[in-house]
């Protein structure tokens, strides 16, 4: 139980290290990460960092991931300006003739800053961003099917079905709008870590 908490702390530290090292060539990045992982294993085995304070101290001694990255020549302060556009282009670029969204996706996939799961998240959660959401919603809400029946010559009844029931529709609307914004915030946070 407690052990799992400590493992999560180590996982978080290694995740930060991965982001900080993102701009290095793959082989170099892997070697440094492997060594830091082995270091943590050795240090935990040696002094038995069994509580959170002990582990925190151990990680402090290893140092800030940004400092390790700087020593490796991957300056964490050096970001490319167009990567900053991604968290804006993905949710909003769809309004720019949808080309904006495609540019955002292209930068997202070309950049080493984001990992595969971020890239998938950014691409699949909301194709064409909020513009896509609006198109989808207007399509699904507008379609109404009306059928008329009744005896020929007699009075006819018209029955219409369609649209989404109001509470469900609102819930879906909320999720569809909130999800892209949350994903954009997540991508921005990952970018700032690098």
């Amino acid at each position, binding site marked *: 139980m407690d052990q799992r908490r400590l493992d999560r702390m180590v996982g978080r530290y290694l995740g930060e290290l991965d982001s900080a090292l993102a701009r290095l060539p793959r082989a*170099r990045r892997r*070697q*440094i990460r492997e*060594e*830091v992982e*082995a*270091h943590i*294993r*050795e*240090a935990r*085995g040696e002094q038995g960092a069994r509580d959170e304070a002990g582990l925190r101290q151990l990680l402090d*001694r*290893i*140092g*800030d*991931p940004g*400092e*390790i*990255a700087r*020593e*490796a*020549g991957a300056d964490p302060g050096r970001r490319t300006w167009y990567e900053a556009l991604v968290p804006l282009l993905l949710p909003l670029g769809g309004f720019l003739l949808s080309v904006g969204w495609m540019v955002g996706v292209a930068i997202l996939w070309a950049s080493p800053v984001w990992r595969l799961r971020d890239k998938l998240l950014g691409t699949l959660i909301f194709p064409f961003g909020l513009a896509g959401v609006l198109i989808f919603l207007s399509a699904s809400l507008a379609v109404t099917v009306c059928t008329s029946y009744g005896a020929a010559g007699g009075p006819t009844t018209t029955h219409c079905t369609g649209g989404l029931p109001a509470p469900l529709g609102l819930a879906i609307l909320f999720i569809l709008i909130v999800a892209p914004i949350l994903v954009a915030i997540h991508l921005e946070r990952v970018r700032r870590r690098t």
Partner: protein
Amino acid sequence: MIPGADSNWESQLRRGVVEYCVLAALRSRERYGFELARSLGAPGGLLMGEGTVYPLLARLRQRRWVETTWRESGDGPPRRYYRLTEQGTQALTAFERGWIQFRTAVDRALEEGS
């Protein structure tokens, strides 16, 4: 005043010499990463955290100043050991000669000024 400018010379100097201190730590025998990190990473030492030794080692290895071997550790997974190469030894010797001259020159300059 430029922020951090007061300690700039220090970090420049440290950056320039720390690689050779890693080489020097390997002079007598081969060591594994954790061992090196502990001995060089003590507070007040030359490293900005124990973990910064690993990018240094990676660079030295790329320059073929050190080479690595995996060895069984007995009580855990195998360890990667670092050893000085012939080129590494030469680089270290050249640095030592240069460093002594440099140190002497700086000392002399400081004394003359006082």
